[in-house]
């Protein structure tokens, strides 16, 4: 987007890949970039977890397409997936929008030849460090903080709203326990025809761990 004059061919020291894979040519291009890159990082929730475009998988393919186009004959889209479904990824720069801290951490680590130190705990930790009153416990708000990877400095709870998990799931998140808690609170946490916890997992299609360099 930011440059004209043709696509550089590489080799690349570091590649930052954003976006969800929804076309087969994107997967091919991704593999080519991987081959030419020393380091490849996934940046942003789409590349890491499928993000918002992956919500399409919560409906049957044809149904979701028909709501948008009358003529689907020229519209092609494969099942959305994160980029590590296709290539090896050297690290995840989380967030939607991606966080500055993790981006700097990834790049400075490459420059200085060390392992990047990505945050591997939940938003709750950041929230407690800030001294916030817990919205989930004290106000019965459907906060996704307990299962969401840290990095935003508990932005939403600090603004009096429940976390909706734009940073994506943290490693070993116990989504099931949180879902049960939501369920006990009642219907306000329930979507239509959907798993209780999936309603707030906007950015987390799958639960997965993260790998580092």
């Amino acid at each position, binding site marked *: *987007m930011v440059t004209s*004059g043709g696509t550089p061919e590489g080799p690349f020291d570091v590649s930052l890949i954003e976006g969800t894979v929804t076309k087969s040519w994107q997967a091919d291009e991704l593999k080519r970039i991987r081959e030419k890159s020393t380091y490849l990082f996934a940046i942003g929730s789409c590349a890491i977890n499928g993000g918002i475009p992956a919500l399409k998988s919560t409906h049957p393919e044809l149904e979701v397409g028909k709501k948008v*186009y*009358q003529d689907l004959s020229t519209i092609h889209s494969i099942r959305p997936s994160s980029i590590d479904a296709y290539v090896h990824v050297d690290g995840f720069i989380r967030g939607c929008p991606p966080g500055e801290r993790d981006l700097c951490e990834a790049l400075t680590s490459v420059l200085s030849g060390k392992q990047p130190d990505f945050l591997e705990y939940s938003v709750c930790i950041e929230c407690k460090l800030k001294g916030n009153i817990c919205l989930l416990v004290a106000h019965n708000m459907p906060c996704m903080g307990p299962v969401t990877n840290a990095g935003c400095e508990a932005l939403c709870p600090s603004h*009096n709203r429940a976390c909706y998990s734009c940073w994506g799931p943290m490693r070993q998140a116990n989504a099931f326990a949180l879902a049960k808690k939501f369920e006990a609170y009642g219907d306000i946490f329930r*979507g*239509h025809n959907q798993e209780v916890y999936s309603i707030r997992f906007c950015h987390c299609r799958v639960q997965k761990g993260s790998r580092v360099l």
Partner: protein
Amino acid sequence: MKISIDYIARVEGEGAIKFDIEDGVLKDLKLNIWEPPRFFEGFLCNRRYDEVPDIVARICGICPVSHMTTAIRALEKALGFTPAPDSITLRKVMALSQIVSSHLVHLYMLALPDYYRLYSIPDMFPRFEPEIRRLNRMKKVVNEVTALFGGRALHPVSMVVGGFTSLPPRDKIEKIKYELENIKDDAKETLRMVSDLLFPDLTHNTEYVAISSPPHYAINEGFIISQNGVKIGEDEYYSIFKEDEVSYSNAKRTVIKGKDSFMVGALARLNLKFDLLHEDAKEAAEEIGFKVPDYNPFHNNLAQAIEIVHGISECRELLDKVILRKPEIGIKVREGEGRVLQ
């Protein structure tokens, strides 16, 4: 002669364009937006009302505020909720800060390199260092405005259906007012810089469309007007416009029924409601000799620079009017329908 550009660089989104020219006459032109479809309209069905603004924000990383505000207003309309006057003012502040930020990116990062035949922003160093520094100064302040009320500049979190979940302390608002004051000269300088560019000479008298709600330079809400006399409410959109699918592109094409394409954006707005601009913007436009109507589409860049002056001054003024009350968000869910335009 056939010209085919497979990847239009330095635009937001992914597109290609094909021209077919015979003896100097354009025979065929195809704009193909090949950006993969994401099906937002499809997967939004059956979701909770309060998830919609956060989901649609992700349509675009440059203009999330517009998408969120549209969703919020439509849902409030459907739920029969009237937002507090303060929320309306703050939404305007949010919208203005984002429009200025988007215009800045477009002018300095996407358009400017073209006028100097450079490939990208990095190529602009060192010759354009003062300009890039000016861009950074302004962008930083307008992003801070969005973040002050939205929690963060991109995909704000505190702007929700019903109002705002939290408000900043007074002293931070005073500080940002001071900073907006400080970039007013940079805004005027931006306009002078853009007015010095060599624009191709072209007259294209299409139909200009914008929203309008005098005496304000409408933002977020208003009638749909055009210079050919269209004046309809926002819920009557489909009485005049229609969206067509085209086989060679993933994006739909909107036309005025029985007529043809039309133009929206900064130039359209100026052509339709120049008189309602902030005095600072009118003065600055006069200084560079800009007059409406202006039918050169390349002058959209000029119009954006004028709107930058307008946006900063208007934002600064609106902030004087904000009375900070404890936010109350009393939404009662009911069945309903709401159509709005941004």
